């Protein structure tokens, strides 16, 4: 009801749902780094297609992600326009050639610039479906244990787990406090002027923050009473052992990284340059 549009785990039964969280995490990290590093259009295009297919396999519905995707489209367009406005010659600097399409003084459009912008867009389309996929198909508690598995210290992993555990709680608290404030007669309408709006927000945010600070004390005592942090390791109730498919998917991720390294050599750099 409270337009709580935050992406979160949606239980399901697809192949991707059944992959180990650690596998998905490794895959996500490696492939996003690969996509971040390379500007090879062919590689980006393949990954794009691949991740869109994965979304389909996981059975994710458009309405689950539409708000995010709409936002990203708007954001990507603004960003691309900004890049163009600030430096329309950026493409030709990168690719060292100049094929003019529309000659318009400062805003001269070149093939190089358009090609560069195409790469920027492709980069968005590559990583976003993968992240969406990860967020929507990974059980958050398994996520924490998988962080620990790939070498993050268990304390940090648990901190992340606590964060995921408390996001819904803090969200509920936020609405409860807001409701409780209104029930006491606090008007929180959007029509008020700025100072009033700031005051109104502070009236919810302050109790939220201060009660959460108290909660930090209480939770940390409760955790100490149950011996958190007493050993160098800990085990995880939710941990799932690796299966064959997990090894295979992990291997695929490493292969993709390898491809990027090879491409770097072939292109002698980050950029694939069709103009030379």
């Amino acid at each position, binding site marked *: *009801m409270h337009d709580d549009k935050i992406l979160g785990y949606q239980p399901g039964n697809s192949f991707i749902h059944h992959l180990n969280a650690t596998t998905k995490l490794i895959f996500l990290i490696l492939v996003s780094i690969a996509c971040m590093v390379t500007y090879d259009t062919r590689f980006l295009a393949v990954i794009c297609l691949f991740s869109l297919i994965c979304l389909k396999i996981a059975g994710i519905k458009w309405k689950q992600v539409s708000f995010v995707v709409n936002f990203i489209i708007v954001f990507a367009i603004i960003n691309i326009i900004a890049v163009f406005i600030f430096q329309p010659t950026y493409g030709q600097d990168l690719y060292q050639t100049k094929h003019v399409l529309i000659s318009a003084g400062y805003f001269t459009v070149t093939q190089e610039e358009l090609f560069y912008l195409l790469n920027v867009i492709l980069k968005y389309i590559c990583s976003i479906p993968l992240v969406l996929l990860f967020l929507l198909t990974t059980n*958050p*508690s398994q996520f*924490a244990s998988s962080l620990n598995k790939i070498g993050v210290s268990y304390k940090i992993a648990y901190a992340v*787990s*606590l964060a*995921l*555990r408390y996001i*819904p*709680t803090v969200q*509920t*608290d936020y*609405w*409860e*406090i807001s*409701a*409780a*404030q*209104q*029930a*006491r*007669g*606090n*008007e929180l309408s959007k029509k008020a002027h700025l100072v009033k709006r700031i005051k109104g927000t502070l*009236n919810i945010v*302050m*109790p939220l923050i*201060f*009660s959460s600070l*108290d*909660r930090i*004390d*209480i*939770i940390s*005592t*409760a*955790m*100490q*009473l*149950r*011996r*958190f*942090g*007493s*050993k160098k*390791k*800990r*085990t*995880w*109730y*939710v*941990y799932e052992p690796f299966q064959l498919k997990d090894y295979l998917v992990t291997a695929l991720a490493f292969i993709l990284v390898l491809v990027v390294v090879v491409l770097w050599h072939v292109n002698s750099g980050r950029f694939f340059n069709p103009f030379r």
Partner: protein
Amino acid sequence: MNKPIIQFKDFSFKYDSQADPTLKHINLEINPGEKILLAGPSGSGKSTIGRCLNGLIPNVDHGELKGTCLVNGKDITKASLFDLSFTTSTILQDSDSQFIGMTVGEDIAFSLENDCFTRETIHQNVDRWATELKLKDLLKQAPQTLSGGQKQMVVLAGVLVDESPILLFDEPLANLDPATGLKTIQLIDQIQKEVNATVIIIEHRVEEVLARHVDRIVLISDGEIIADKAPNALLHQDLLESVGVRSPLYIKALEKAGVDLKQLPDISSIDALPEEKNIAEKLQSWENKQVPPKQKTEKQPLLTLKNVGHRYNKLQKHPLHDVNLTINQGDFVSIVGQNGAGKTTLCRIICGFIENEGQAFFKDQNLADLSIKERAEKIGYVMQDPNQMISQKMIFDEVALGLRLRNVPEEEIKDRVYQTLKVCGLYAFRKWPISALSFGQKKRVTIASILVLEPELIILDEPTAGQDWKTYTDIMNFLRELNQRDKTIMIVTHDMHLMLEYSKRSLAFANGQLIADTKPIDLLTNADLVKEASLKQTSLFELAKHYNLTDPNAFVQAYIDSEEASQHA
């Protein structure tokens, strides 16, 4: 021969921020395998003693400490929290904020994970306790989707997996429905026998705890131990009520009927009472003497609910649905039912915090047309969890908040706030910050902050959980007084006696449904309803049965009538 496992010697403790010590010259020895009930009024220092046993004092709460306290041979000033955590397992009072894991299963497993047990062992243990405590269906649920009582059971399981020599329960019953409360007490008893643990229970609901054998009751008042006796010996004295702790109802009934308690060898449970004819006669003749007070009639409908319900999510098994009822002006209604039945959900719907599937009318006004704020001008709601209501730092400001937002002149605010603080037993603390209050005191602050507004309809969600008898009576009498001034009151409660004594009408919920809307006494006479809504007969009823009185229900009614009459006098 037994060396005490817990030993306080002339022990005093003062929290840093306090001017006076909270615990004064405590001398107490507890032997291994003993079962102790720690009782005393709210704010007397019970939780503070508990915090010494698990090492939170002095490791987390700093203060001035005199004398010694040894737990399992370790001096608490020298032992770390970690050392003591193997000795003492604690259920903190505020079970809501003690829930650590992301799901029920993980929370139960938490300490096992930290001890690095293998995955298989952990799963076995979790399964075992989840089955024992009937939590199996909830294992995958997240904490914010549990009701107050369900959370408490999970926290209990999380502590029991540990199997430590000392088990400390700080108000384990506060949020549980009567039947579950009784089961919990039986369970604690059974576990103690299995692992031969030392058990310390802090509770206001003395009678419930005494349903199973207890070795000693330690009574605390204002930071001092004023009695340390076997239950029978303590009950023979008139100590409990003099410090504001409620003594078992059946004992009060015996006293009222003029039975001389000193003549009875064992009064620690109803079964132990001698089955003498003359006691039965005394009870019967006392019953016959009571006259029911006059009932008001002629009522105007105030709140009408039509097909009211709410479903939190698709997975929910028994969402609240199809509630149809009318609350009349001047009603005093109690809402009862099993944990997770949907009582709090109903309150939230009425106040507009969550959506309503059906329709609700206040007088002739459709509530759907009103914002939360507009509803609040007519309906005041005291939430179950006090932490969600408190927004100010100082007690006075918190209680005054609603009046200030309604632009009441500051002079009048002061009068009204002080008046309400007195009712809630908080006047002595009026200049304190809320952070220095005990749990029960915090809850009272939230009650005060609604009572001060005197709305037409007041809804209280378990106002008496964690309150001692004296404050409880003060608050309830004030509500009764408001009720006589034609305010309408709805109370969610797990306290059967409260329901009988104060409310005129009961709504019982089970599995998201309204299963009964009737007089309290009729609710408890119906064995099916009692079972379905997870309720329990009071000990008055048991007493009447024990002495074969002709009509046990009439006896219960007589007792209530006499209480009400004495309040009016």
